[in-house]
């Protein structure tokens, strides 16, 4: 059942790609002269490369895995996630909401904005710590998702997968430590090209093999109405769709990795263009993998509702670890030799490009926003680069350990949304009010940050520890309800606290 078409030719294609990334790391190192080059590529990013790197880092293997899983578990209804993300990014691109004022201020990280706007170093340090902690937790399962993909598409056993994943993470560390943002941008570009062509071709082959009407009929048989209408689908509904729209805004305008791209842009005009075009990418990064997930669903159903993806009664498995495997196993059976290697190389490239972006992002936040501001004397550029590289290694070690023992308990996408919410619920309030409301104060910003951490209650293991699982199930409260509520309370709290405890000093800059 788990046998795939993966051959030696496909392994050769993957190995050639991995070797290429090492060469890139060595080659671009010569261009890194300072922290600005290392973190934001000297702010020299132009539109087309900006679009490639923005989509490249967001269209990662993990995104593909959780999006395909959603397609497998909810059918066409899952498409609303991509649609909401695309609309949200388009609105940000047209209005310049949050990202344009941030680019104008010339900040490199969001906690740096906290300090510039509120003139509070403590806020920057606390904000930086929460951001990095939530971000590292958020990427905690990237390695697990990568391992599931590699074992699913190649058919190799779990022990071998661990070695492959370790080699990949070492390679990512190698070229990211050497080339910083410059090598991240180049590898993102290569990944964007390889993966985009691979996925587009996969869609064509899948439709040709299964047929559109078979797909529609299959989803109808398995999920009936719920497989098409997100407003009536189980576990989805109106509030979930609203949560997806909010996440769409967050992932392009508040999430640090996207903001880093905006800050690396050559000008404000480039930022807007990048977002306008990337809206398509933000939609497609969900749509294509979800569609492949739907194809996998119908393919395995038509094979006789085979296990482990279906239970004895022909119902879709409820085990997240199993449903996550459906897409790679399907690809391994669908694609011919050669193309399978290209798609696998593209996906592994996606895995690496997501890792390099996130590793660089969170390690630079720890250096720039936590350690450097805490140091009694301003650290030299060289010391900051060395420290960022040390954090890169430490985070990678954490990922290996966390990825192996954490029990998922919910869809990967929901885990990622909730773990990210620990940071972004507070950050959204601070960015929104800090940029567009003169009276926002430091005390208000602190309150938003602390309230935002309550979003951790959305994680299943935390609910189990607090004995809240039964209560939430009885009341029909999902992680999206918790996320939306916490976001709303954070904004409200920041407004109330800002009015009751205003800042003493007058602002000297106009941040609007």
């Amino acid at each position, binding site marked *: 059942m788990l046998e795939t078409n993966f051959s030696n030719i496909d392994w050769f294609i993957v190995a050639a790609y991995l070797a290429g990334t090492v060469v890139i790391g060595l080659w671009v190192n010569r261009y890194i*002269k300072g922290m600005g*080059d290392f973190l934001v590529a*000297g702010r020299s990013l132009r539109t087309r*490369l900006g679009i490639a790197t923005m989509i490249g880092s967001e269209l990662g293997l993990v995104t593909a895995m959780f999006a395909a899983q959603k397609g497998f578990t909810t059918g066409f209804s899952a498409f609303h996630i991509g649609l909401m993300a695309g609309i949200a990014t388009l609105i940000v691109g047209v209005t310049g909401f949050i990202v344009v004022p941030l680019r104008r201020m010339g900040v490199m990280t969001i906690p740096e904005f906290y300090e510039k706007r509120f*003139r509070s170093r403590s806020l920057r340090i606390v904000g930086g710590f929460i951001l990095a902690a939530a971000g590292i937790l958020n990427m905690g399962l990237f390695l697990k998702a990568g391992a599931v993909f590699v074992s699913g598409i190649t058919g190799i056993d779990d022990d071998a997968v661990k070695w492959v994943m370790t080699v990949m993470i070492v390679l990512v560390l190698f070229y990211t430590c050497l080339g910083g943002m410059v090598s991240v941008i180049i590898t993102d570009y290569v990944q964007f*090209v390889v993966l985009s062509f691979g996925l587009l071709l996969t869609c064509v082959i899948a439709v040709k093999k299964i047929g559109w009407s078979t797909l529609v009929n299959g989803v109808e048989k398995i999920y009936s109405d719920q497989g*098409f209408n997100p407003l009536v689908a189980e576990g989805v509904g109106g509030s979930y769709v609203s949560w997806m729209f909010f996440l769409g805004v967050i992932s392009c305008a508040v999430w640090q990795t996207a903001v880093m791209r905006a800050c690396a842009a050559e000008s404000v005009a480039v930022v807007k263009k990048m977002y306008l075009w990337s809206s398509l990418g933000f*939609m497609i990064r969900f749509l294509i993998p979800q569609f492949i997930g739907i194809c996998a669903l119908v393919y395995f159903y038509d094979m006789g509702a085979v296990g482990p993806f279906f239970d004895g009664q022909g119902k879709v498995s409820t085990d997240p670890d199993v449903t996550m495997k459906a897409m790679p196993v399907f690809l391994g059976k669908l694609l011919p030799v050669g193309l399978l290697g290209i798609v696998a190389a593209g996906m592994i490239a996606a895995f690496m490009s997501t890792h390099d972006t996130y590793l660089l992002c969170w390690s630079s936040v720890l250096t720039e926003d936590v350690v450097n501001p805490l140091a009694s004397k*301003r650290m030299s550029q060289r010391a900051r680069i060395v420290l960022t590289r040390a954090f890169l290694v430490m985070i990678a070690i954490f990922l290996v350990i966390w990825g192996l023992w954490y029990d998922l308990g919910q869809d990967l996408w929901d885990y990622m949304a909730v773990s990210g919410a620990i940071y972004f619920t507070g950050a959204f309030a601070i960015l929104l009010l800090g940029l567009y409301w003169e009276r926002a104060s430091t005390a208000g910003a602190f309150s938003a940050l602390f309230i935002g951490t309550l979003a951790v209650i959305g994680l299943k293991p935390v609910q189990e520890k607090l004995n809240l699982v039964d209560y939430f199930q009885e009341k029909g409260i999902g992680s999206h309800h918790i996320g939306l509520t916490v976001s709303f309370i954070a904004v409200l709290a920041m407004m109330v606290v800002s009015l009751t405890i205003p800042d003493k000093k007058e602002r000297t800059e106009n941040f609007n």
Partner: protein
Amino acid sequence: MEGWINFWGALLLVTLVIYTVLVLYVSLGGVADIRNMFKSLSGNENSEDSDSQELDEEISES
């Protein structure tokens, strides 16, 4: 339900077509942008970013 099926089908088709054009445009144009980026980076003698340096000094003085 028919409405949803047509809507998702049309969305998928239109998005795939536009995305194909975008991939071609970015793939070809990106090479020129990479060249420009390296040219720009070669010209940077000292690329210390603002990184709130002035503010850092201001705050540490006060």
